[in-house]
Every structure is written in structure tokens, then in C-alpha cells.
């Protein structure tokens, strides 16, 4: 039997407000344990939470970017359960009236665009963090994370493969980074993804029994965990078994999902309206203000830059992956560089230097103006591409200006026709056998002769010019 997978994603994003969502404690992730805590986020009785307006603004911005309807009227609710990471035994969340509903985001899979429905995005508070490194039968709890602003984004069951799930996460992360609402660091837990997975025979309308996979700490982990679950479901059904509805954790070391022990009643959260917090009313004017403050979003920027700079779809995609890279690129072009060549130098040379140094383009010592100058020098023939690679590596290392490096290292290309011709004649005289082979039709020898001239000039000859002159000289001598 042919099966198809049905996947829905739940993503929790820590919003980068300076303070927590219901109190003034700092949202600094790296503080010493239990130093960013107060009676509110410790869940002391008698305290009064007050909603951080920055969280509302950023949540609405995400909602608008995900084409959601923003609720004119929404409220906060208590989700009740017992767990040591939640001192007050309920999490403040949104139940039946989330702030954002019914949106979508387009993803790109194998060159095809697919629309993934967004069911809702709602405000909640993060829980404390447990450490299991404490010895014996004990765990330590750090409440610094308790009360951090958390936005939960839920998709429709529109995803059909692990690949699509990965594309969704990539597109969502890009969007969140464009909006500058989260650093989306999966390893540090500021972006957490869970997947609801089921399979059904192709053509069947009804969903199969789903499992939920949690505890995934990387995008590639999500991809592997979903692939594993899909295969596990299909194998189970084909061998006459049944999928049990349960929550499973991803064991990255073993590359498998394992059932998590949960009490049967764990999902009966007995939501009720949070009496300590009043409803949120986002009127049209407020929504409009946020809409107007949105930056150019990834899809729009991709298509504008593709058209404006004549970039291929692939190049436009790579360059707009991050806003910083896109900004950098536009500055290089604004500084006068040829758009196509700037794209190549940015995506190939600079990118590989950045990856090797594990550096962010924001901290890059090669300024956009310097890269533009480099592209210009190569275009004018003052230096060749090979020299360019050395120059950019030097600029990357030292932050020196392009022209200074060219001057210091005596890198200027030889563009003097007479000088190159003299060297060519010498090389031809030194290699009569090769010249003979070339004349008898062995075209490959041409490359050897080019190499000899290049060597004699220490790589400084302008390659295009050298090619021309060598051909001319060879045919001249023949006649």
C-alpha cells in the first residue's frame, strides 16, 4: 500500500524583549542561575502579572507577516498542570481566543512553491529550566527562563514530508529573523519545534493516528525525526500493528524516537480565563501602525532584488537568506560594483571565508566598499581573479583597504602588451617541441604554454590579454 505522511508543526519562539512577559526581570539568557527572578516569575502567591506591550507588538508583527487575522479582542488563559519547571502550577497562555489566526506562509521545495496554513500564533510564558547534572536523585531548577515571552506558532496539517517540514522551519526562521523578534537559536532553545505526525493510505481522507515528537535540538534533527517516525508508522501498519497516540522524544545519539512516559490525564489542562490579566484589544489603528513598521519581508526582497540586479532565482535566494547578507550585497552594488560579479564574490569567496572563520557577516572586516573596489579592479583588468582571491583573504584577515593590499604586495596585473609579448616569444623559443605539437593539432598544449607565460610573470599577466597575444603570436610565427 502507498502511504502519505501528514505533518503539523508547533514552534515555540522566545521573543527578544528586554524584559520578561509578565514582570520586569531581564530576559538575558546567559545570566547565572536564578538571578533574573522575582516574586512574579517565581510564582509566589498574591503577585500581579502585567503584560509586556513589546510582546504584543512583536506577536502582531509575526501574525501580520504570516498573513494572519489579528484578533480585535483576545484574552489570556491559565493552562493547569503540575511540573517542577512551573512554580505556580499553571502556565499563562491563550486558549480559545489567540492573538493571531488563519494565516499562511509559502515554502520552497524542489523548486516548487507550496502554501502552509498557519492555524494560530499565541502568547504564552516560558517555563523554568531543569538541569539533570545535579548528582543523585535530584534535579536543579533555574527560573531565569520562567516567564520569558514565548510565541507558539501552529500550522495546519499541510506538511507532507520531512523535507517540507524542514523548508517550513527554514522559511519561518528567516521570517522571524527579518522581523528581528528572536535570535532563533535552536541549540539554546530560543526556537523549539515539535511535529505531529501521522500516515494514511494515499487517497484516504481520514487522518491516521498521530504521534507527537518533541526534544529536537536542530533543524537536521527535525528532518531525521520526522523521517524516522513516518517510516516507523508505515512499517507498523504494514506488519499488522497499530500506531499508538503518544508523545515521543527524539534521541539524537541513537537516531530514533522513544516514547515519553506521560500520565493519561496529562492533557486535561482545565483552561480558564486568567483573572489577573485583562483582555487585549488590538484595534485597526494599532494593527495598521505595526503593519507600516514591517520591514521588507523575505519573499518581497527576493523578488525585488532578483529583478533589480538581474540575479538568478538561486542567487537571489542565497543572498536574501539573511537580511544582513542582503543589506551587505546592496551596499556593495551601491558602491559601484557590477551586480552579477558582486554576487559571485559575495556568495563564493567571502562566504567561504566567513564559514571557515565561523563569522557573521555583520562582523566581517571586509567592508562593502572594499569588496566593490576589488570587483572593480578585477573588471578593469588591474588584477586577475586569482590575485583577487588572495586580496580578499588578506582583507578578511587584516581589514586593510583593497588598493593598499594590491600596492603592498605588488599585485598589479601586467597589462602592458609589449611586456607580455616579449615573455611569450621567450617561452615559445624555450619550448620548440610543444610549439610543434600545437601546430600538429594538439590544442591542449595551448594551456601548457599559457601556464609557462603565467609562471614567467609570477601570475601577474592579464589572462584574457595573454590568451589573445599567445594565439596571435603562434599564428604569426606559423605564417
Amino acid at each position: 500500500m502507498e502511504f502519505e505522511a501528514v505533518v503539523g508543526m508547533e514552534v515555540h519562539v522566545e521573543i527578544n524583549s528586554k524584559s520578561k512577559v509578565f514582570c520586569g526581570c531581564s530576559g538575558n539568557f546567559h545570566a547565572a542561575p536564578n538571578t533574573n527572578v522575582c516574586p512574579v516569575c517565581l510564582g509566589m502567591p498574591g503577585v500581579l502579572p502585567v503584560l509586556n506591550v513589546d510582546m504584543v507588538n512583536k506577536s502582531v508583527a509575526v501574525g501580520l507577516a504570516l498573513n494572519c487575522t489579528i484578533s480585535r479582542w483576545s484574552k489570556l488563559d491559565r493552562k493547569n498542570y503540575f511540573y517542577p519547571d512551573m512554580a505556580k502550577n499553571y502556565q499563562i497562555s491563550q486558549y480559545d481566543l489567540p492573538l493571531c489566526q488563519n494565516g499562511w506562509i509559502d515554502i520552497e521545495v524542489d523548486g516548487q512553491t507550496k502554501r502552509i496554513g498557519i492555524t494560530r500564533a499565541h502568547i504564552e510564558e516560558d517555563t523554568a529550566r531543569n538541569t539533570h547534572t545535579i548528582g543523585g536523585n535530584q534535579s536543579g531548577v533555574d527560573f531565569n527562563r520562567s516567564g520569558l515571552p514565548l510565541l507558539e506558532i501552529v500550522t495546519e496539517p499541510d506538511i507532507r514530508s520531512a523535507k517540507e517540514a524542514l523548508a517550513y522551519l527554514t522559511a519561518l526562521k528567516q521570517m522571524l529573523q527579518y522581523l528581528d523578534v528572536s535570535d532563533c537559536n535552536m541549540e539554546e532553545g530560543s526556537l523549539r519545534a515539535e511535529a505531529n505526525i501521522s500516515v494514511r493510505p494515499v487517497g484516504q481522507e481520514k487522518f491516521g493516528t498521530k504521534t507527537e515528537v518533541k526534544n529536537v535540538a536542530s533543524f537536521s534533527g527535525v528532518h531525521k525525526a520526522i523521517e524516522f517516525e513516518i517510516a516507523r508508522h508505515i512499517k507498523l501498519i504494514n506488519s499488522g500493528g497499530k500506531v499508538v497516540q503518544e508523545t515521543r522524544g527524539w534521541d539524537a545519539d541513537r537516531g530514533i524516537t522513544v516514547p515519553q512516559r506521560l500520565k493519561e490525564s496529562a492533557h486535561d489542562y482545565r483552561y480558564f480565563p486568567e483573572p489577573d490579566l485583562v483582555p487585549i484589544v488590538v484595534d485597526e489603528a494599532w494593527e495598521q501602525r505595526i503593519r507600516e513598521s514591517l520591514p521588507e519581508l523575505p519573499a518581497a526582497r527576493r523578488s525585488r532584488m532578483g529583478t533589480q540586479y538581474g540575479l538568478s532565482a538561486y542567487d537571489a535566494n542565497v543572498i536574501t537568506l539573511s537580511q544582513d547578507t542582503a543589506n551587505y550585497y546592496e551596499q556593495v552594488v551601491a558602491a559601484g560594483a557590477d551586480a552579477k560579479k558582486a554576487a559571485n564574490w559575495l556568495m563564493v569567496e567571502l562566504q567561504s571565508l566567513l564559514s571557515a572563520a565561523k563569522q557573521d557577516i555583520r562582523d566581517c572586516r571586509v567592508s562593502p566598499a572594499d569588496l566593490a573596489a576589488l570587483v572593480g579592479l578585477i573588471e578593469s583588468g588591474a588584477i586577475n581573479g586569482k590575485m583577487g582571491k588572495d586580496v580578499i583573504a588578506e582583507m578578511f584577515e587584516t581589514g586593510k583597504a583593497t588598493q593598499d593590499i594590491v600596492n603592498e604586495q605588488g599585485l598589479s596585473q601586467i597589462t602592458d602588451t609589449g611586456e607580455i609579448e616579449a615573455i611569450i616569444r621567450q617561452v615559445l623559443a624555450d619550448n620548440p617541441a610543444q610549439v610543434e605539437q600545437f601546430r600538429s593539432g594538439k590544442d591542449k598544449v595551448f594551456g601548457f604554454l599559457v601556464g609557462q607565460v603565467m609562471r614567467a610573470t609570477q601570475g601577474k599577466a592579464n589572462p584574457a590579454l595573454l590568451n589573445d597575444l599567445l594565439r596571435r603570436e603562434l599564428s604569426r610565427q606559423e605564417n
Partner: protein
Amino acid sequence: MSKITKQDVEYVAGLAQLRLDDAAKERLVREMGDILAYMDQLNELDTSNVEPMMHAMEMTNVFRQDVVEPSLPREEALMNAPVHDGEYFIVPRILEGDAS
């Protein structure tokens, strides 16, 4: 007519992590049943023209600005904990996968 059974009471008590003796369970069967009966009585009213009340307060949009304020000194934060190690609240070992 009570809609509440002893099993209902035990289930809700379990969720709330309450241990009840038989007398308390019986009392709660009665009391919770009375509350539901009262709800049924309210349901007899025609409320089709009444705006649903979502919150006891009339107020909306009470916010704080995103400003960091001082937190508690750690000694004070940990002061009420039955067990702590000066850095962390110490709790019985949390088993991986118990989270909801």
C-alpha cells in the same frame, strides 16, 4: 439530578493532586452537582441578545513597557525553598520525558 459521579470527583481531585477521604468525596459529589444544576438553571434564560462576558473586569489593554527592573537577590529568591544549593532550587529528580 446530580450529573457528578464519584469517579468525576476522583478524576478532578487527581488532576489537582488532592487526596480526599470518602466523606469529602461524597460532599463534593453533592456540591459540584449543585453548581452544575445552577448552571443548568442559568441555561434556561434566553441570552441570544446578550454579549458574552469573557472577563470579570471591564478594563482592557493594561500593559507594562519593556523595561528591565531589578530582580531579587538570589539568596532571597531561594530563601523559601525546602532544598537549594545556593544556585538552584533542588527538586526530586525529574525524569526525562515527564514534561507535558
